[in-house]
Structures are given as structure tokens and as C-alpha cells.
């Protein structure tokens, strides 16, 4: 049963990822990527990382992809304005991507030896446990992430401004 759910989610995520790459219209690309993200969120639920799944949906599907969609509509991009790569380059890209896939799978095949803990804690992905770890062991990176966000916000506003002299 779990394996069937995993395989279904994996199939859906790979299918929509491929559709995202191959569809002409950028708006459709965004929609397919959101569906891929939902499939990945399903994988997180399967892994008992519920908090991660919810944050993933809120941040990616809710914030980042809506930002992409807004910018797409602002710029009025559609399949008519879509630049098309030359066939030679497409072939090269296919060969390069395929080689990377073959290399990675070949390198990782059968080489994973996990020393799993004797008593495994299935509650590791719940918000209580994650919050404790985040605010004890990772409190300095957490604050640095806040500074990074501030810098990104200032940078985005500065870059997006029409006239810098105001």
C-alpha cells in the first residue's frame, strides 16, 4: 500500500516535471510545477514530515509560485513570445542531461549502506521536535536566515525600482 502510494506520487511528480519542461506556454509551466510541488508534499506526508509538508505547500505553492505567476502576467508572456531553442542545442541538452542521469544513477547504484538506529523515533518530523531542534542547536543559522531575508527584501525592492534617484 505504501509502496503503491510512493510510486503513484513519484510518477505524478516526474510526469508534471517533464510537462513543465516541455510545454510552450510559461503559464502552463508554472501550473505544472505547482502540481509537482504538491506531489512532493505528498512524499513528505508519506515520510511522516507533516510540518515540512505544510510549510512546503505554503512557501512554494503559496508564495513562490504565485510570485512567478504574478511576474508572468505582469510581463504578459505566453506561447507566442516564447523563444525556441535550436534543434542542435536541444539534442546536445538531451545528451548532457541523459549522461548526468546515467552517471549519477550508476554512481549511486547499490552503494547506499544506511546504519539505521536501533530505536527509531517516528515523531521526528512533527512540529514539537523540529521547533526544539531549530531553536536550540540551530538558533544562530536561524537568525542569519533572518538577515538574509532582510538583505533579499532590500535588494529586490532596489532592483525593481524604476528610478534609482528618487
Amino acid at each position, binding site marked *: 500500500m505504501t509502496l503503491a502510494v510512493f510510486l503513484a506520487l513519484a510518477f505524478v511528480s516526474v510526469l508534471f516535471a517533464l510537462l513543465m*519542461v516541455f510545454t510552450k506556454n510559461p503559464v502552463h509551466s508554472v501550473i505544472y510545477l505547482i502540481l509537482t510541488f504538491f506531489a512532493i508534499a505528498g512524499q513528505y506526508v508519506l515520510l511522516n514530515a507533516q510540518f515540512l509538508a505544510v510549510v512546503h505547500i505554503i512557501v512554494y505553492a503559496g508564495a*513562490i509560485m504565485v510570485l512567478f505567476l504574478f511576474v508572468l502576467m505582469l510581463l504578459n508572456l505566453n506561447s507566442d513570445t516564447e523563444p525556441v531553442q535550436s534543434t542542435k542545442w536541444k539534442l546536445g541538452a538531451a545528451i548532457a542531461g541523459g549522461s548526468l542521469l546515467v552517471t549519477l544513477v550508476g554512481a549511486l547504484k547499490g552503494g547506499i549502506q544506511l546504519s539505521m538506529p536501533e530505536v527509531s523515533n517516528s515523531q521526528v518530523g512533527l512540529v514539537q521536535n523540529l521547533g526544539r531542534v531549530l531553536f536550540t542547536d540551530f538558533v544562530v543559522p536561524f537568525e542569519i536566515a533572518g538577515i538574509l531575508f532582510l538583505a533579499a527584501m532590500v535588494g529586490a525592492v532596489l532592483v525593481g525600482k524604476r528610478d534609482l534617484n528618487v
Partner: protein
Amino acid sequence: MLEVVRTIPIDYYVYLSTLLFCIGVFGVLIRRNAMVVLMCVELMLNAVNLLLAAFSTYLSDAQGQIMVFFIMVVAAAEAAVGLGILVMIYRNTKSTDIYLLDNLRN
């Protein structure tokens, strides 16, 4: 022990993440629209996130999932700044074709 840890080998997650990552790389190479290239980068980040979460659950160690949060933070910042730059480029060139961005050539 979780049902998923017992029934699904970790290799499956490794292969799925590798496949998604390679689709992202392929998309970056094949598309000329800067917007779609950014989206493919997001897909690659997500493949890594999935792998981190899977190993975190299999080893019942919370640190992997904390790392996923920080990757999400960086991805969100990257998307905001990247889209800002993209809007600026569009304002100057009236296009998001990455082939027009060869000002530094010669």
C-alpha cells in the same frame, strides 16, 4: 518503525531525487525563457529537499529537515531577487530571452 521505512528502500528516494534533479538540469539547458530557467532551478532545489527529508526520516534525525527549511529560505530569497532582476531585464530589452543577455561578450 514507520511503515515507509520498512517497505520502501532508501534507494527509491535516491533515484526519484536524481531523476527530478536531472529533469531540472535538462530544463535549464533546453529552455531560453529566463523565467522557466528559474523554475527549473527551483525544481532542482526541491529534488535535494526531498532527499534530505527522506534521509532524515530513515535515520530519525531532525537535522536533515532543519536543513530543508534553510534551503527553502534561500530559495525564497533567490526567487524574489531573481524575479526582480528579471523584471529589470524585461524593462530594458522587452524580452526574457536569455540569448539577448550577451552584453559582456567581446
